[in-house]
């Protein structure tokens, strides 16, 4: 009885969570007539796959994609490099002021983005970075508190003896980081990379503030652009939305194991 109830609830909820995705995909494959039909058409008479190519060429999406890829790749590389370096520094050294600094690092997570958004705009404006992709890439090369925290926790679980042994063999701090900890951190790096990729790929506000020129737009801005056109083209919007969802979904399925393991392995206990 309890099981039946559980199964019905789970299946109902799965449908509820999946429905919006499915509905968007179906919409992307409809004809104009089917789009405006009432009651809604649940399965198009003919799946119009050409909607995707039509939508893609309606606006310079190849350019937007190129910009998105540049931002995501360069910022992810930077994030992985910088956050792992800093995490190693906090996890493996004793130095004066380390603990207060680490608390400060954690505290920065509480600062709302809204407070930094205006001065950062002025700062990037001063540097002449507005309308370039730099504001979306460069800050990622200086580490992010949450990721540093995550990687540091991971390094803390690795026995100190490994470092000691390497040091006996004459390895210096950099070599221990590069040859030992970076490979050992791989699962945590996948996690950080995935989270950062998704944030960067989906980011709307950053590009909205820093980019004015269409040639610098990223995909989310391009998609939003559709809404402002003379005649709102819902089918194209749905098609681009589907395309925009694909990379994070694919990455999620690849990294799923790490995400679940991390959440399930590191409960926030006092």
């Amino acid at each position, binding site marked *: 009885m309890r099981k039946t109830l*559980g199964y019905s609830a789970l299946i109902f909820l799965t449908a509820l969570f999946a429905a919006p995705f499915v509905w968007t995909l179906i919409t992307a494959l409809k004809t104009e007539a089917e789009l405006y039909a009432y009651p809604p058409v649940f399965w198009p008479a003919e799946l119009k796959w050409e909607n995707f190519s039509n939508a893609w060429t309606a606006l310079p999406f190849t350019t937007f994609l190129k910009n998105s890829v540049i931002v995501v790749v360069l910022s992810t590389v930077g994030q992985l490099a910088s956050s792992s370096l800093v995490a190693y520094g906090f996890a493996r050294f004793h130095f004066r002021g380390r603990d207060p600094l680490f608390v400060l690092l954690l505290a920065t997570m509480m600062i709302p983005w809204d407070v930094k958004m205006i001065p950062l705009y002025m700062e990037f404006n001063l540097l002449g970075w507005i309308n370039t992709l730099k504001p979306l890439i460069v800050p990622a090369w200086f580490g992010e508190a949450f990721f540093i925290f995550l990687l540091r926790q991971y390094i803390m679980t690795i026995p100190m003896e490994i470092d000691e042994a390497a040091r006996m063999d004459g390895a210096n701090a950099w070599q221990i980081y590069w040859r030992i900890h970076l490979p050992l951190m791989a699962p945590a790096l996948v996690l950080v990379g995935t989270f950062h990729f998704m944030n960067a790929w989906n980011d709307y506000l950053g590009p909205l503030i820093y980019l004015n020129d269409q040639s610098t737009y990223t995909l989310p801005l391009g998609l939003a652009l559709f809404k402002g056109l003379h005649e709102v083209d819902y089918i194209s919007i749905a098609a681009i939305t589907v395309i925009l969802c694909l990379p994070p979904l694919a990455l999620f399925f690849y990294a799923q194991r790490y995400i679940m393991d991390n959440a399930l392995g590191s*409960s926030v206990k006092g």
Partner: protein
Amino acid sequence: MATAPATPRPSRRKARGAGITPWLFISPWILGFLFFTLGPLVFSFVMSLHDWPIVGTREFIGLENYRTMLQDDPQFWKSLWITVKFAGLFVPLNIVLSFLLAVLLNLNLRGTAIYRTAFYLPSVISGVALVTIWSWIYSNEYGLLNYLLSFVGIDGPNWLGDRTWGIVAITVASLWGLGGSMLIFLAGLQSIPKELYEAARVSGVPPWAQIIYITLPMLSPMILFTLITSIISAFQQLTIALLLTDGGPVNSTYFFAMYIYKTAFRFHDMGYAAAMSWVMFLIILILSMLVMRWSAAWVYYEGQARKDDADA
């Protein structure tokens, strides 16, 4: 460790730590903190003391921006109230629903991995895509939601065009991404020792009482964590509202964060926007501190309790 050295090892680590090496490793964050956090914070405060248009001359006006906000700007209070209403809807629902989903998943029925993935998926695509998807569902003319509601005899409202329902629509769309909180609760549930439930069952404690006396106390640290992060994200809510309703209808979803954003980047009044962003920062800080203090009354830390027992 099985092979402890016979003589205490000299603290070589400490000696080495005195050098510049650790600072080199953490230097990216230090620089980032100075240029992308501390600098902007100070700069933003300085701006808040000025009449600072995006172009043109700026003028030092002391606390005038803050005075205007509190005394002469009804929109400030309205936007703040809208954000508080949204937080009042979003925060409890986010916690309760992600908790219930985690409990369901923790029944460990067959196919749990699939359900877990389904519940988490929406968190993967937040942003413009999420909003577009929801604008279909809410659409007045051909939306899925009102069509489905018509089956149960409900004549659905114009979700995004109605002063009452707009904020509800934004709340529901935001709740769709509760996967992260759900995973945290699930992790908590799985770390509760099975023996506790076993003992309770043997003593004849009914299931509902097990939830109140075992599950909730054991999960209280995660509840606290989710509470604070949900409050912060509720106050910062901007993307969804901006794209779904753009503050409308009749400014009924003109969130505080949106007011800040528009003041800065549409009305180009940087000084006033900076002042408002500082007020938001203070509100979040004070709320978090109040929650932390209040939490001492209900958060149960296992390690702490054991220590107290030992002390007694």
